[in-house]
């Protein structure tokens, strides 16, 4: 790009997109926490607040035909992937109009249209699934990438290691995205891992890997773009360790006694929205009015999503047994 004004314009527009994406997730989840208190949302609710940069930047780097495998902390991934907020909120309520037909709830968001393969709530359970999706693409000669999200907790599971090995052995088009927020529920990384450099584990399987500041949305986007390009070009699996932090407790029913309050506060200052906004303001790319406009748009979208979820009918009990197996072939 030679025209600096065009570059600035594109960059501004893209930066605002990223900011908008992160604000949608942040405000949506804040609303979810409120609704949880009102008993509108039940079960487990794991909030992504603090980690928004990863979902927003990674999804920006993926094509529509790529596949995404997520975890039980999946709201951010789902929204950034393009599943409508209405469908996600209705799922949080358990309504038929939810993206999983109401059957999954917070931990089990799915969407076939955007190749969003859940919403997997057994730690490490999504990794072999992603390996298989990559295998299918490779065997059928498609150039898709499967992006597989998981946390630092999953790294302790055998499934992590088995999946790394298999993906590397068969050179499968899988991009492993480890969201390292330093705590597996209540257990700190250094109390769960003999080697805390997670990317080193991937490298030991001969998978190209690097650690990235997961709070820096542009850094994440750049790293994911490069990795996606390599995977798509047939270079086999790639691995990114995205260092981040969840600002909220593990789930709603967690007293968060295992983390130091100062530690949490320090990380909050490094938050992806918290750092992006001032840097955009300093660069003169965004003003308060623009931020207000974004916030209003997000608030409207959330209000509409809540209304959409509220007004939907409960699924009749008579349909309890649907979607267990396909109907018997005639």
């Amino acid at each position, binding site marked *: 790009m030679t025209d600096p004004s065009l570059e600035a314009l594109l960059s501004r527009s893209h930066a605002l997109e990223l900011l908008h994406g992160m604000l949608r997730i942040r405000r949506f989840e804040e609303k979810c926490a409120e609704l949880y208190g009102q008993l509108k949302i039940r079960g487990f609710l794991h909030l992504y607040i603090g980690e928004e940069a990863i979902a927003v930047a990674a999804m920006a780097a993926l094509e529509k035909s790529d596949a995404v495998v997520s975890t039980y902390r999946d709201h951010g991934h789902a929204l950034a992937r393009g599943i409508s907020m209405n469908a996600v909120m209705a799922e949080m309520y358990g309504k038929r109009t939810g993206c999983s037909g*109401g059957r999954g709830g917070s931990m089990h968001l799915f969407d076939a249209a955007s190749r969003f393969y859940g919403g997997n709530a057994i730690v490490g359970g999504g990794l072999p699934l992603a390996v298989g999706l990559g295998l299918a693409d490779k065997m059928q000669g498609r150039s898709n990438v499967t992006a597989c999200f998981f946390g630092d907790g999953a790294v302790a599971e055998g499934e992590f290691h088995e999946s790394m090995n298999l993906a590397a052995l068969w050179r499968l088009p899988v991009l492993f995205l480890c969201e390292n927020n330093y705590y597996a529920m209540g*257990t700190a990384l250094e109390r769960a891992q003999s080697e805390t450099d997670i990317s080193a584990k991937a490298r030991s399987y001969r998978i190209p890997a690097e650690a990235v500041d997961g709070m820096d949305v542009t850094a994440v986007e750049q790293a994911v773009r490069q990795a996606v390009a390599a995977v798509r070009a047939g270079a086999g699996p790639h691995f990114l360790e995205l260092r981040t932090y969840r600002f909220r407790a593990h789930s709603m029913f967690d007293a968060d006694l295992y983390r130091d309050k100062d530690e949490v506060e320090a990380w909050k200052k490094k938050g992806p929205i918290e750092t992006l906004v001032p840097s955009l303001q300093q660069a003169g790319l965004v003003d308060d009015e623009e931020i207000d406009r974004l916030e209003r748009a997000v608030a409207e979208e959330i209000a509409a999503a809540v209304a959409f979820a509220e007004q939907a009918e*409960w699924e009749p009990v008579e349909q309890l047994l649907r979607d267990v197996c396909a109907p018997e072939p005639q």
Partner: protein
Amino acid sequence: MTAAKATYRGALREALREALLADPRVFLMGEDVGRYGGSYAVSMGLLEEFGPERIRDTPLSESAFVGAGIGAALGGMRPIVEIMTVNFSLLALDQIVNTAAALRHMSGGQFHVPLVIRMATGAGRQLAAQHSHSLEAWYAHVPGLRVLAPATLQDARYMLPQALRREDPVLIFEHAQLYNMEGELTAEAAEIDIRSAAVRRPGRDLSLITYGGSLPKTLRAAEMLASEGIEAEVLDLRVLRPLDDRALAESVRRTRRAVVVDEGWRSGSLAAELMARIVELAFYELDAPPVRVCTQELPIPYPKHLEDAALPQAETIAAAARAIAKRHV
């Protein structure tokens, strides 16, 4: 006999404390059992009292830490392993079934595994399809294991010491809906065994046979039936393997009618096993077809009204009982 206010959770914790105090070979390990206090807060405070050597937080590595429990038991320790829920125990199924359960036999009796594994089970909190299942029947299928389902404060408090006295692996299933149960702890330790079923309510008209988290629902159903003039005996299995055939046969012979209540799915379930045994043990005593109230055959759905509809409830238990109850003509 002294009675004290207690919760199921507190009773479990007290049992753990007692075991840790009594025997230096005993230690507790599992995911977040230490600093976090246990995902169901059962082990809260134990880290401070006993230290990180004996209250060991593990990585999320079910197969490894359950296997390590087996190895430690072989090596002379008396480990208590907590698996967060039965759903996650599937990652350790290989170690439990292929190693813990089989070692004594395949070593010709040279080795044995004095290991206690505790885990939460069951639905009812809208945790959907990967955190709600009742898979204890799978373990009750396996020779070499003893499977317990404490459903009362007394059992929560006094089953553990009995389990630790065993020379073979014992699995303890704690229904997640029971942790907050309050009541009075009255039993003396001597009254608690891990062999027999218990009649929790006498009744002459039919037997309601259940265990674990379904016991409170079943007792409520028995109350409802009593108000209609149907006197139901409630049999709490307590021990899912080996099953107390004698208690089962005696109950059904007394009442000649049986309703089996099981939060597992109907097909291939513990309920299926119980139905088979009722027929084997008391066919000629039966005065009505035995029936089952089980969880509907689907992964547990998230919305409350569908989850409720999928699970056994006091109303559905009472309805099944009414359908076969003795009519006083």
